[in-house]
Each structure stands twice: as C-alpha cells, then as structure tokens.
C-alpha cells in the first residue's frame, strides 16, 4: 500500500491491520514518534492524519491510506511551535515531547489563540513523567504569540 507521510509517498508491504505506529517507526524508520502505553492512553505516539491528532498506536494503517500523515519530523524546525519549545526550554528526557509538540501543533492550527484552560484541555491526554507540563503551557502560549 501507499502512505503519504510528511508530504512524501512511501510504499509499504504490511498487513492493513498493523498499527500505524509500527509502520512509521519500524518500517519507515521515522523514529521520532514514540510509544508509552500502546493503548491510546498516553499520547506519546500522537501524529496528525489530515490535520487531526490521532494516537498512532491505535490506528490501523489500512484506515489512513490516501490520507495525509504528519509526524514530528514533518513539522518544520522554524515553525513557531518548535521555536517556542526551545525558547521556553521544555524538554527533559524528551521521550514524550514528539507527541506533545504534535498535539500542540494541532491545537494551534485549529485555535491560534487558546486560553490556558483550552491548552490544558487539549493537552491533558499527553502524559509526561518528567513533569514538563508547566513549560508546555508556557511554550504553547509563546508559540501562539509568535504566530500572532
């Protein structure tokens, strides 16, 4: 089957029921996408499908054929969300950060001026054991300003 990831077309030969996560990570070697629970609880594996955030561990690859998939690698380095993330100094271990950044990117594309409450509501499904939460809120607000 053919997959469109970060604007590129890839050919993959897998069972259509395979979780998108494994296809991205292990077949296409786009390892920026991580996993923490494999059960749609933690958000580490978040990617965008046609602009909507989804948990790639719980989406079958067969269902996203023909759609446009964006992973952390597909968000430009100079995008305000990534710049704000660095300016605020969000990451600690970094493991959850791809999922966080992708989720925040999706939020800002839909709502460029989110309130604190809206940020928390959107991001609450993404776990971070290192406790970078306060800085995530700050970085999303900062990115929103930069996009202003």
């Amino acid at each position, binding site marked *: 089957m053919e997959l469109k990831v970060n604007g590129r077309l890839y050919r993959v030969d897998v069972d259509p029921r395979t979780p998108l996560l494994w296809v991205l990570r292990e077949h296409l070697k*786009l390892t920026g996408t991580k996993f*923490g629970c*494999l059960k749609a609880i933690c958000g580490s594996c978040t990617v965008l499908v046609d602009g909507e955030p989804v948990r790639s561990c719980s989406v079958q690859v067969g269902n996203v054929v023909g759609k446009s998939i964006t992973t952390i690698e597909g968000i430009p380095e100079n995008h305000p969300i990534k710049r704000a993330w*660095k300016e605020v100094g969000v990451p*600690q*271990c*970094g493991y959850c*950060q791809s999922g966080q950044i992708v989720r925040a990117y999706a939020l800002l594309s839909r709502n460029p001026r989110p309130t604190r409450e809206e940020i928390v509501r959107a991001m609450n499904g993404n776990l*971070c054991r290192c*406790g970078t939460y306060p800085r995530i809120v700050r970085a999303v607000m900062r990115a929103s300003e930069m996009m202003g």
Partner: protein
Amino acid sequence: MMTRREFFKLGGLSLLIVATSKGFDVVKANDLKRHSPRLWINLSEDNYLTVLVNKSEMGQGVYTGIAQLVAEELDFPWDRVKVMPAPAGKAYIDPYMGSQLTGGSTSIRHMFDIMRSAGAVMREMLIEAASRLWKVPKSRLKAELGYVIDTKTGKKVPYGKLAGLAMKLPVPLYPKLKDPEEFRYIGRSLPRIDLDDKVSGEARFGLDHFFENQLYAVVERPPFGGRIVSYDPSETRKVKGVTHVFRVGKGVAVCGESPEAVLEGRKKLKVKYSKTSVGSTEDLKEHYIQLLQKRGLIARKDGDPKGVYEKFPKRIELTYLLPYLYHACMEPMACTVKIDRDGCTIYAPTQSQTSVLRHARRITGLPESRIKVITTYLGGGFGRKSNSEFVAEALKIAKKTGRPVKLFYTREDDVQSGWFRPMCAVKLRGSVDNRGNPNSLYFKIAVPAVFEWAIGKERRGVDSAAVSGVANTFYEIPNIHVEFVKSKVKIPVWFWRSVGHTHNAYVMETFLDQLAHLGGKDPVDLRLELLGMHMRAQGVIEKVAEASGWHRGPREGQALGIAYHHSFGTHVAQVAEVSLIDGRVKVHRVVCAVDLGPLVVNPDLVVQQMESGIIMGLSAFLYEGVRFRNGFAVNNNFDTYPILRMGEVPEIEVHIVRSEGEMGGIGEPGLPPIAPAVANALFRITGKPITELPYYGL
C-alpha cells in the same frame, strides 16, 4: 563509540582523564603508552569542542551541565560545543564511585573539578602554543571565547589553529582554575545542549537504532516469586513473522520480524505459572504491619525514648503504610543489540554502563575491548535504568537466535518486570514536653532492603536506604530510637528517585506536624527551633515561609502545608497551597526553596529538576501504588496506574538559596518534601493525619 581510526582522524588536541589513586589526572592522548580511544575532550582544528560525557542524559540535563564546566574553563563559545555519550569502559568510570553509573544525584558534584580541570589544561596548552608561535611571553596572552589574543597587539588566533601545536606540548600539572568572579557560564542558564535533538524528533532512544537482519523480541514474565512451569508455543508459532519462542531468564521470549508479529504471537502463548508466595495487596499490607511486631536492628538510639514517651502525657502513636511505587519512565525498557564475529554492539538507555558491560562479558564471553556500548538518550530513568536486566535479556536472545535484536517491554511488561520503590509499614511514637517541644521520637520501619536487591545477595546490618533521612535527621530531638525490620517479600525492589527518602521524608515530616499540633506550635517555627544548629536548613525554611506568605496565612478556603528535607547533599523546603473540594485535592501553588551550596552550574536546570520532582512526588502522593493479585501487578498501564496529568499541576515557584558549604545534588532532592507538604495542608483542613498512601486509595 569512537574507533581507534576515528579517534586519530579527529586530529586537533585531545585530552583524557585518567583515574588515579589520588583522584584523577588529565593527560594527552599520545602520552599513553598504548594509544587507545579513551578520549574525553577534543578541540578540532576547525575550532569545535567535543566533550564525551560519562554520565547518562535522562532528562536531568547532565550533558549540558558537564559541557558547561569544560567550556567555562576553556573559555569557549557555547554554540561550538558538542557532546557525545562516552563509551562504556574502565577509562570512563566516575573515580568517586569506582564505576560508570549515573545515580544518587552525584554527577555534577563528582565531575565538577575533573571536567573543569580538563578545560583549564586545554586552555593553558593553547596559550603556551600561541606564546611559542608568536614568541611572546604568556603573560601578554589571554584566552577568550575560542581565541588566544595578544593583549598588546590585539592579534588573535582561533584555538583550533593552535591545536596541532598544543598537542606537542607537555600537560601542565597544576592548571589554574577560574575564580568564581571570572565565570561566564557557570551560574548561567544556558539552553540545554540536547534541545535541538529533542524538539526535532531526532533524539535516539533505546529502540531507535536499526541493524540489518534484526529481530524484534518481547518477553512474557512469571508472577513475582513464581516461575513459568510450562508454555505451549504452538499457536504463537503460527503467527506470520514469528521466528522463535524460547525461555530466557525467568520468562519466555517471543521473537519475530516485526513488533506487530511478536505482540500478536505473545497473545497466543499459553503459559502455566507456578504458585507464588506473593499474594494480593491485602496480604502484603498484613505482612508489613505484622512485621512491625518483630524485633529489628537498631540504627540509632539516643537517650531514653521509651521512658520519656511514657512519662509525658502529650504523646501520639501512628502507623503508616506506604505502597510499592513504579518508576513509569515514559520510555519502557528497550534496547538494540548485535553479537557477531567482530564483537558485540549495544544501544541501551542505561544509567549503569558498568553493569551493562558486566552482563555483556558474561553472556558473550567477549573481552571488554570487543564490546561497544552506546548510551542512547534515556526516556526517563529515575533509578530504574541502573538495572540492566533488560540488556542481559536482549543479549541472551541475540546469542540464541544469532541475529541482532530489538527487545522492547510493553507498558504491562515494564510493570511486571518489577524493581519498585519498596512498600513499607512504619510505626511512629513521639511526645512533647510541657512547653510543646518534642522530646522523644520512636521510628520503626518494616521494609525490604533495597541495597540487598541491588547487589543481589543477602547482607547483614541495617539497610541504609531504609532509615535514610531519619537515622541521620538534623532535627534535634533528645531521645530517638530508629529501628529496621527487613521484609523478604519476593517482589523485586530498586532505587526509585530519592530512594528511602521518599517514604521517610513523608513519615517524618507529617509526624512532625502532628507533634507541632500536639504542642501547640506553628509548624514553621517548630522546624526552625529543632534545626537550631543547621543554618542551611533554616535558610530554605525561612525562604519558603516568606515567599509563600506563611505568616499571613492561607487564602480563603485553602490551607498551607510545609515540609523540609535534606537529601543528596541538598536542602529543600516546600510550602503547598491546598484546598479540598468534594473529596478532591487541589494543589494551587507550590513554593520551593533549594540550597545546593555556593555554586549553581545552571539555575534553570535546577528549577526544572525541582518542577520535575514536585510533579512526580505529587503524582505518587495522590495516585500511585502497585496492586497485586496472585503475584502479578494488576494495575499495569496508565489507565489503572494513573500518573499526574497537566490539569492537576500546581503553579510552581522555585527559589535558589545560596550558602557556604558543600555542593549538593539536584535530580532527586526536589521530590521528598512535596507529599508531606500537601498532606500537612490537608491535615489542617480535615484534622486527620494521612497515614496510608496513595491519597485516593490503593
């Protein structure tokens, strides 16, 4: 790991650090009799500094901190500094530990002088080189931000251009370190050096390397204290892509061509388990409480705690019960290994390169020189990743299958692998005199011996983790009894961020508030009185009291709680602003003061570690505890073992207090005070002490 060839290709000026009986020496690469790739820092001819860091980056910022130390003394532009994980090997041990290990909040403390000296040596050699090149006295030269400058003529040359010449010069024996007033980086919040990697998605963790012909593997595990009696692999083997099913360690490995294949195959595995002595959560609670009846080992005895306790009518006795805690690194255990004719290569998110090497030597039979360990970024460590059992499993699988292996734990596997913060029961008794001053304290803890599990054999004596923070408490209470009873429950325990301090700070700090209440004392005042001799402890308590508005009192509908604890050389006090609405705890704000001595390498990283410790500690207080049935952990994913989410995170305000005295650590000390601070606030609301955790029930 750098090969010999790559090492010589680097060129420029390369320095090594050699552990000696007196500490360490800095030497030039070519001063060693046998050239070997043991480089620590390199200055390339195109003027880049590469620092090999012998400590693991697990979020605490150690790559940044260590690089800052070298760049400081070398006086080098920060944007030209690179870091690499040091290989595993004797050449890279922490001389103060005698092993290559990241733990105990020690990295910066141990490497502070070493890495600064290496930078200073390099700087002096470059100045010497310039002095010879230009034939001018050294006194006229200065080294600044990557250039050696002739202060008379203004002529300047980039360090890199001098590197080749410097490499021919002797290493100065006593390099002069900068005075603190001269610091340009130490004390500054430079941005983390791993930011780009971690924001771009390029950062590589345990499962992010690929080998040709690699296999994937997962391991099915037995109950704690039990074993796998038999297994039927027939259905598993039918799954497309599954290649091998066999026993490894205590478990059964399922290997195959893709992660989806091995997960599918494992679901079909039929396994029979033996009976186990580890029962359910209720059995464990009873076990620990019962154990308090037994006579233990005395860790400390001052005066006559029993007599005093009995004599004074104002006294209190409480029994605490605290659960097993799971580390919950966001990255479950995972590594990628290869064994072939040339040797063995291991990509592992490990806190203990020494133990990885030990396993690798034993399993492969190869000499250390043919074992390459590449420390990846760690997706959280918290102590858990100093246990290298997962690497041993991967190596055994690679050996047996003859193929490179990516071993990964699912979340459920990660929990069932164990190595938790131990459960414990603690009995406390204390009394206060007529003026309300605590005059006796009795502390008896029933808990497994973490250090025994860590070294893998029985030990006599008091386990130091079991009584840490209590046997050596700074509180001056005249009559003290500290006793340890060892539990031998077969649930593996390990170091969990701040180790014994996690339970002991909770018990001590909440009990102290009980004594304050009994004696009619303000909790802040009482602490200050009991810490009469300890200025640093008083300093952080005074700071949080002031910054939180302690003496003004709480806002309407809220209560304030304070806790203080000293661990890993650092003093931390925290005040929590808390309210309780319909049985739900809301922590509005936490004010934290931390004293880690006179020098702080990177203040923002200190703040980050305080935030991190507070959030993890609050998470444990409210929610965390592993439950068991028939020896299996039953709450084994984030739906049943919740950790704190963004919505419950308080506002956090951190104050760094400077003081004279020794430098302390930073990765762990922020965690212990938060749970008791919140519990003490809740006590003010409800009047009931909280003696069982987690707050929302196990």
